[in-house]
């Protein structure tokens, strides 16, 4: 929680503080009895603040009752919250800030900007291991945890969907440095394209609709992108947010076309070369002489998203090594310099926007076919925020970072569903699922404050003359405008 502000502020102090800000709790002596006293004082202040903040939310609760709103009090909850904050803050003051202060500073001075990495490095190996695990994951799950196989494969599918969306958005935000807060719009365009095409035209199945959905999303990307791409950083962010909301409101209200809030249901399931994953003689199981099981379809869907994600990854990696990808990164670094070198930055931005949108569209049509039902509910701003959070938390431009962030954020949050034991601690009324987004938000803030550049912040050069060296985050600018 909050720290007490330091009051003295000489000019030099201001600068020193700006540099040290993230590292240590201010004003804590490192050793001696004074330190404990300071830590205590700080913890008391923080707890008092927590009491103030929590008073109207924890101690008091308004509920609809007969004859208007009624107030109930929960003093116990309030006092325990204050106590927890006090204890937590005290513990942090005593054991964490001190160590972190010293440790971090030491690391900072020794950190090198470039790291030479000949041959295989940790990240490459980790990437391959992860790839190998992903290839066999459904069977691994069926073998190790047969009891929860449906649930776990479903979760893997969900994580992979976010990985793909993250990789798609990474092109726009991570490489081209364009802050897009409305990415979910393209996800929606893809999903609705497939849903509408397949429900209106009998012959259009998933595999036909997939490229069409991607194409339509890309076209939308160009249409929306063209007027706004010359805006700088946060303005672009807010306009893309507006576009995302406009598309959602239109989907919600254009009843005849989109079904409004009811959405579109009975979206066909994907087939394997015409084989449906259904019970019956012409189904997948019968064709291969297997016993019918619903798990087959889960596994099939898993591999669809896996392949889609891998294609996204390979295309992105390839694009980075092409002139267009280098121009994206150059644009992120310095747009004016790009223009002085003859690069048409508008077109370059549009390609990034369109390609990012295309992958969003692919993911959207996958989402539609997996769910079998879509409605505007699924395409809120929160979804955009989650995807962006995955990209930024993973480390802008880092493909591997997106995977880690997806697993941590999506997987971690879903795990809360399984934490039944928390109910035993907090009582029957406690439903961990309700806290999912609260924890998600807290994790976003905490990870950002801990690692502002994301979990993986080094940049791999796109071309090498002699030695492959990783570039430290302090060199790489991240779409800060000019």
């Amino acid at each position, binding site marked *: *929680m909050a720290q007490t502000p330091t009051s003295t502020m000489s000019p030099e102090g201001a600068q020193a503080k700006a540099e040290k800000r993230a590292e240590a709790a201010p004003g804590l002596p490192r050793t001696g009895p004074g330190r404990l006293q300071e830590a205590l004082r700080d913890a008391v202040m923080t707890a008092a603040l927590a009491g103030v903040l929590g008073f109207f939310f924890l101690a008091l609760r308004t509920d609809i009752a007969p004859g208007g709103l009624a107030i109930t009090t929960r003093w116990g909850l309030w006092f325990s919250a204050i106590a927890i904050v006090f204890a937590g803050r005290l513990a942090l003051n005593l054991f964490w800030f001190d160590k972190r202060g010293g440790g971090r500073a030491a690391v900072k001075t020794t950190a090198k900007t470039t790291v030479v990495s000949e041959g295989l490095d940790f990240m490459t190996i980790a990437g391959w291991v992860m790839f190998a695990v992903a290839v066999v994951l459904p069977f691994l799950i069926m073998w190790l945890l047969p009891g929860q196989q449906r649930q776990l494969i479903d979760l893997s599918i969900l994580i992979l969907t976010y990985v793909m969306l993250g990789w798609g958005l990474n092109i726009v935000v991570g490489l081209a440095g364009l802050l897009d807060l409305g990415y979910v719009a393209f996800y929606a365009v893809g999903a609705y394209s497939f849903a509408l095409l397949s429900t209106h035209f009998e012959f259009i199945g998933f595999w036909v609709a997939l490229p069409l959905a991607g194409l339509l999303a890309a076209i939308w990307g160009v249409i929306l992108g063209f007027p706004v791409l010359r805006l700088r950083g946060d303005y672009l962010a807010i306009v893309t947010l507006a576009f995302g909301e406009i598309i959602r409101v*239109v989907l919600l209200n254009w009843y005849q076309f989109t079904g409004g809030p009811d959405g579109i249901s009975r979206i066909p399931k994907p087939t394997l070369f015409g084989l449906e994953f259904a019970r019956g003689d012409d189904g997948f199981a019968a064709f291969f002489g297997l016993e019918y099981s619903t798990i087959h379809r889960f596994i099939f869907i898993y591999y669809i998203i896996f392949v889609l994600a891998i294609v996204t990854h390979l295309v992105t990696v390839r694009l980075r090594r092409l002139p267009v990808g280098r121009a994206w990164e150059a644009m992120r670094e310095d747009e004016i310099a790009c223009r002085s070198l003859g690069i048409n930055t508008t077109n370059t931005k549009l390609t990034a926007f369109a390609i990012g949108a295309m992958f969003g569209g692919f993911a959207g049509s996958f989402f539609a076919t997996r769910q079998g039902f879509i409605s505007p509910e699924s395409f809120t701003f*929160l979804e955009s925020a989650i995807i962006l959070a995955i990209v930024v938390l993973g480390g802008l431009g880092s493909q591997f970072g997106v995977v880690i962030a997806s697993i941590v954020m999506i997987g971690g949050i879903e795990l809360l569903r399984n934490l039944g034991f928390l109910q035993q601690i907090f009582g029957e009324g406690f439903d961990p699922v309700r*806290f999912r987004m609260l924890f998600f*938000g807290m994790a976003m803030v905490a990870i950002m404050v801990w690692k502002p550049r994301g979990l993986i912040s080094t940049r791999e050069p796109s071309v090498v003359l002699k030695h492959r060296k990783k570039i430290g985050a302090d060199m790489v600018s991240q779409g800060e405008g000019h």
Partner: protein
Amino acid sequence: MDYFLQQLINGLTLGSIYGLIAIGYTMVYGIIGMINFAHGDIFMVGAFIALTTFLILTSVLGFAFLPVVLLIVLIIAMLFTAAWGWTVERVAYRPLRGSFRLAPLITAIGMSIVLQNFVQVTQGARVKPLPPQIRGGIQVIEGVQLSYMQIIIIVTTVVLMAAFTLLIARTSLGRAQRACEQDQKMAALLGVNVDRTISLTFVMGAALAAVAGIMFMLLYGVIDFYIGFLAGVKAFTAAVLGGIGSLPGAMLGGLLIGLIEVFWSGYFSVEYKDVAAFSILAIVLIFLPSGLLGKPEVEKV
């Protein structure tokens, strides 16, 4: 004509609320150049604090004289919401000052999610209705009603605007604020306490958002944990429309957005009123990126 006038009055009322929230956006953007995404949710928190305080005063403590009740609600809501504003800055933005630009935006979105869900978890997801407290009004002309509620909202807004304009123009805090807007490093070298100034900016923005929250609660008579998002985006639109960084601009933008929204609902379609506001935002940013009263920006080569 009377329909038009009625809509005009409604639009100005709604616009005042947007304007008050917009000031928070514009001040923060002016001083640290970031979109304080959680500001809309601070407004929502303010509305909840006001609601609870109001209920305590009226139903628990049994105060009946409405003006006094409202004054106490105003003061308490401003104070407590200001504490929230200060904390958000301290926890989520200050550690990232001087970091790259996306980082505080992400923590801001994170904070917005935290606030929404915190309120949802602690106060429940259902809407909180409050019966209208201030009834009646005056008949301006045949068919045009100016309710006392609307008068209170507009007058309060005008008074607060005047007070804040004076605060920024005349006091040393305002001077420090403007100095930090120009150049934080230089301001620090000249002895301005930058951290404190920025904190106070958040505190002031949150206090104004609390006032907007009270008004929203009294005007619509219903609040829930999600009101902050839309109101926040619209208020930000207002700030941009007026020219971000400019206080009168924020107010003007707020009024315009309120009018656009009300007229759009009144004459075209209620369902697409948000589309109207967002389209205005896009159009303004594309054709008039510095807003109505903002300073034009010359690209530095």
